[in-house]
């Protein structure tokens, strides 16, 4: 019984309000108090408050947790009717139970009510780690240029009939889809090139999708060199072929969502045979020949990718945010500032676009510093700032490089650079520009945005929306949305996943790696199509597969398909991300599916319901102990106690509806000889309980659910703004959700709406303070 009580409390919150203050607040929040409400309050005060506190804040030593959570009103009523008060459950029943449940629900049970009691505000925030890394890379865009990646894929290739790329010996120029050739003793082009010696150069850009360590592997029995990002120094220099050594590996740190220049030189000189392959292992992926979709035949400029390790951001509210600082963060930003300063002086002539022996060298360098500091601060400098941050460092110092280093260090350790949200009570046009760029790109404003700020073109929601629409076309917006999707779908869960090799003998790490690619392709396909229809993420029966995935999952595919293709599957088997192999594999154990993990994801991640963590860690029963039971039966038995059922009565029926998918996400119709029972149900916060059988019916319910639309709007909002939605007086979640639904669940339009609703709102003050 006490277990059950402890469950009732719901989510723990940090702040306990003083009774007097909260009474005043409540008066403000609910100006018209009906007689019924008064009665309900009286019941609560006499029957409940001794243990739960006058405002549900709890009573130390008796029941010290706040009375709040994510259960529906009906469920709350039922619990009160059945079990409350603890010393005499029959005292509050029936209509009384319903009234007091109403009262609790309306006044402090749900998160929104709690939020209204202490309205959050737009807080001073530093850049998140992701924002910092993007901002430092984008600092140099005006000086180094920007990659122009179009739809063409592959690398520009030039073939020479000499062994040393001699001018005049170039016989072929074409685009190769990847670097993976075994020429043997043959020529790549018998008509123009002899087999004895030839050379090839590949050029273009490499498209990194995720941030992290990339291992490049160059395999050749001949001479080869690889440059990535740093075009002055090869990442791999294997020009000397020596002994049996034909594989070379190097690791490089890259930021996701960006293009980096790449070049490969290759030569055969009087050897018996020739071959070359270029592979990589991106974060969370297996080693593979660099796929065509990650190669562009066009030039991209080199980019700064900061190496300094950063402590992770606070994600306790469900999204990364920068409202706290720490010693480790401060050291990381300082270390990174030094890294940037060293980068700048190592390449000063190129960055400042002036030669060292040019008489304009000193002036050019100083002008570059002005430009850099303005870019870092996202606004023009006042005369005083110009002097403080730049000019004063050049006075009386003969060593230009030292002056530059000081300028960079000072600018990059300044709060003007480090803080993305200054929480000022009066925003100017440049603040609005920063809100937009950090919101949609997690990076600095670009030239067009700064120009709009300078021209006073960021003053109305319409102007903001129009900029936001432009900005959505940029690769940084795609990258940010992908980051959100990964966060939403808990992609990191699958990081160290393994499956029982006896049960799944043909399961290999490459399947998971391919499945993640497949998931990403699906997300991009839906989000960046003209319809950008969120419901398709749940409903589509399209899946992206390559030959390996198709064969493992038994999906139809043309036999000679190259890379990933979209196939339309049986709608009864595939329902968007809900049944996607990557998610089904991640929400599963080594041998069996996990309806609990799946149910929790659906409840929290998709429906947006709050759940408490279980009071004790419960290890799932080993399925070998009762081999005749299905997973569904075992989960039902294990969670049958009343204590468990408080949450599991919501979790299990959702998770069970996905029981057609085993531990590696393969469709099945039986388990242990018994037909799959995929019937499930859900009781929404408002409205009637619903029942469904299987993934398709589940998907259709979710796609039409207000809770789902609201939850998605809220999560995307938090991911963009990095402030709580109710910190903004000019918007509210219900309106945003309504607009979202009215727009046909248009994801891109939702992003625009979020920016239009938030970018102009001043910060800092307690806008709804008492």
């Amino acid at each position: 019984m006490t277990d059950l009580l402890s469950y009732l409390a719901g989510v723990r919150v940090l702040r306990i309000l003083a009774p007097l203050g909260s009474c005043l607040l409540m008066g403000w929040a609910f100006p018209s108090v009906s007689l019924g409400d008064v009665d309900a309050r009286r019941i609560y005060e006499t029957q409940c408050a001794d243990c739960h506190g006058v405002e549900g804040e709890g009573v130390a030593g008796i029941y010290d947790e706040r009375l709040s959570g994510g259960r529906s009103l009906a469920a709350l009523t039922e619990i009160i009717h059945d079990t409350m008060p603890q010393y005499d459950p029959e005292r509050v029943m029936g209509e009384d139970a319903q009234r007091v449940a109403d009262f609790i629900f309306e006044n402090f049970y749900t998160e929104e009510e709690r939020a209204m009691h202490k309205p959050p505000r737009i807080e001073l925030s530093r850049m998140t780690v992701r924002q910092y890394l993007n901002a430092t890379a984008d600092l140099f865009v005006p000086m180094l240029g920007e990659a122009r990646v179009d739809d063409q894929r592959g690398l520009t290739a030039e073939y020479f009939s000499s062994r040393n790329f001699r001018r005049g010996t170039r016989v072929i120029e074409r685009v190769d889809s990847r670097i993976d050739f075994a020429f043997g003793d043959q020529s790549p082009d018998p008509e123009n090139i002899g087999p004895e010696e030839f050379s090839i150069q590949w050029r273009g850009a490499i498209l990194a999708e995720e941030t992290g360590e990339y291992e490049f592997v160059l395999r050749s029995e001949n001479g080869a060199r690889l440059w990535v990002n740093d075009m002055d120094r090869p990442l791999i220099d294997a020009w000397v072929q020596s002994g049996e050594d034909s594989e070379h590996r190097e690791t490089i740190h890259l930021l996701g969502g960006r293009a980096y220049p790449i070049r490969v030189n290759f030569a055969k000189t009087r050897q018996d045979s020739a071959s070359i392959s270029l592979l990589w292992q991106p974060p969370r992926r297996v080693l593979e020949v660099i796929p065509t979709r990650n190669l562009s035949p066009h030039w991209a400029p080199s980019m700064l990718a900061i190496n300094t390790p950063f402590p992770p951001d606070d994600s306790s509210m469900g999204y990364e945010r920068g409202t706290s600082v720490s010693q480790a963060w401060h050291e990381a930003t300082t270390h990174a500032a030094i890294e940037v300063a060293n980068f700048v002086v190592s390449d000063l002539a190129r960055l400042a676009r002036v030669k060292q022996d040019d008489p304009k060298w000193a002036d050019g360098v100083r002008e570059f510093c002005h430009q850099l500091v303005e870019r870092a601060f996202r606004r023009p400098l006042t005369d005083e700032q110009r002097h403080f941050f730049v000019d004063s460092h050049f006075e009386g110092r003969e060593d230009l490089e030292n002056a530059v280093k000081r300028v960079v260090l000072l600018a990059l350790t300044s709060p003007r650079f480090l803080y993305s949200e200054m929480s000022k009570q009066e925003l100017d046009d440049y603040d609005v520009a920063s809100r937009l760029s950090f919101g949609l790109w997690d990076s600095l404003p670009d030239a067009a945005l700064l120009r709009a700020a300078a021209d006073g073109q960021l003053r109305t929601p319409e102007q903001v929306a129009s900029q936001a629409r432009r900005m959505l076309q940029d690769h940084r917006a795609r990258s940010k949305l992908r980051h959100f999707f990964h966060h939403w779908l808990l992609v990191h869960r699958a990081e160290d996943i393994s499956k029982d090799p006896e049960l799944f003998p043909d399961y290999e790490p490459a399947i998971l790696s391919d499945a993640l690619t497949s998931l990403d392709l699906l997300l991009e396909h839906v989000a960046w199509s003209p319809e950008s229809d969120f419901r398709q993420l749940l409903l589509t029966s399209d899946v992206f597969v390559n030959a390996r995935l198709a064969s493992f999952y038994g999906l139809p595919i043309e036999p000679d398909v190259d890379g990933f293709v979209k196939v339309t599957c049986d709608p009864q088997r595939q329902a968007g991300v809900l049944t996607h192999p990557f998610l089904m594999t991640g929400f599963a154990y080594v041998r069996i599916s996990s309806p609990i993990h799946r149910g929790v994801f659906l409840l929290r991640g998709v429906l947006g319901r709050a759940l408490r963590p279980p009071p004790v860690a419960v290890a799932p029963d080993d399925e070998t102990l009762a081999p005749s039971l299905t997973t569904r039966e075992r989960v039902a038995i294990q969670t049958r106690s009343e204590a468990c059922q408080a949450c599991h009565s919501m979790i299990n029926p959702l998770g069970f509806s996905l029981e057609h998918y085993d531990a590696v996400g393969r469709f099945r119709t039986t388990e242990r000889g018994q037909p799959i029972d995929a019937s499930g149900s859900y009781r929404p916060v408002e409205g009637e309980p619903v029942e469904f059988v299987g993934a398709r019916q589940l998907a259709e319910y979710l796609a039409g659910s207000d809770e789902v639309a609201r939850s998605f709007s809220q999560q995307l909002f938090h991911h963009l703004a990095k402030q709580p939605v109710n910190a903004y007086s000019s918007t509210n979640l219900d309106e945003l959700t309504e607009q979202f639904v009215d727009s046909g669940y248009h994801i891109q339009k939702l992003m625009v709406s979020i920016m239009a609703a938030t970018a102009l709102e001043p910060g800092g003050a307690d806008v709804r303070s008492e």
Partner: protein
Amino acid sequence: MTASKTRRQFIRDLGLTAAATPFIWNLPSLGFGSQQTRKQRLVIMFSPNGVVPWNFWPDEQGERFALKESLKPLEPFKDRMLILHGLSNLVRGDGDNHMRGMSCLLTGIELFPGNIQGGSHTPAGWASGLSIDQELRNFLQSRPETRTRFGSLEFGLTIPNRADPWTRMVYAGPNRPIPPVDDPYQMFARLYGNVQDQEKLASVLDEVQADLQKVRSVISADDQALLDEHESFVRRMEGQLRETRTEIDQSWTPDLEPGVRNINDNLPKLSRMQVELLVNSLRADMTRVATLQYTYSVGQARMRWLGIEEGHHDLSHEPDSHAEAQEKLTKINRWYCEELAYLVQRLQETPEPGGEGTLLDNTTIVWTNELGKGNSHTLHDIPFVLIGNGLNFRMGRAMRFEREPHNRFLMALAHAMGHEIDSFGKPELSSRGPLTGLT
């Protein structure tokens, strides 16, 4: 210069270890370790393309010998010299003599078969074993009393941006050539970059705090606590930096002339800069093993400052009968010898920190070359000229051998530093043990 750096490169440039470094990085070692036994240091200096034998080798043996033209600059240090004539690089195998001369010089072992075609012989790849300096580095780093921050440093001068068996003589292992650093500024950053960065940082912290105060005044009162916390970190860092700064003696950091470009015509300047960095790294005990590689095998230094327009390698192919060419080659070798003499002099005038005498009393320099003679490409009579007293060899002598495998000499270097290996490089060439008669 570079557009951006790999993590590897970044860490290398800063002289940092790959492990997450605390903010106040490991400073150049200023504690001098154990002073109970004397420090022993080895510097191997290389210049290419053979010598002019009759202007190089003394006619006499033993303690009474006269220095010929090419070695004249070492006259003041004659009693600290040991000239070894008659050692041969007998390794053989794939690759032409320049390649094998270079890549077997310090490794004493064959090159792998490979794709690099020289002017003659079969193509070849990298050396199949590590070089003696790295063998000694590993030995010294394995013992706490001889461990240093870098273990070894590889200095270079005007080496092309090209990795092949002609440009590499130092190997960490089979197929693992180590590139020499031929840009003094890059070497400076590696040795002192962290100190410089900290200095620079310390110099802006007052302004960082002033800026924080200004920003604090424009944000809402509720948020000022966050900036106060931020500022407390800045103050703490300032205190830490102040403490460490007092420990650093600024005179230990050499002053380099800024803006010297890494080109042929600057070789004399670059040479002095690298020597200065080398001497300082030895003095601060950042390393006890170093190599100093002037250009590379077949290197084409054009010594216009000596009035020589031709490239060194081209000249070295001229026949013995071409007197003018031989005179120029002698001058070239003499120039390298002058640089060596400068290094020796700098070591001699630098007191041994925490010990007695000067650095030269505890440092031996070996000057060597990949060929005996340029126009014949011989691998016999490879020059090995030793100066200084880092190893307990009996100095002030010229010694003569008859085609002794140079592996035995490489072994003798190891034994003289307390590393008593049974074999080095190709086993059959080291079977007779370390070269005798040196002590």
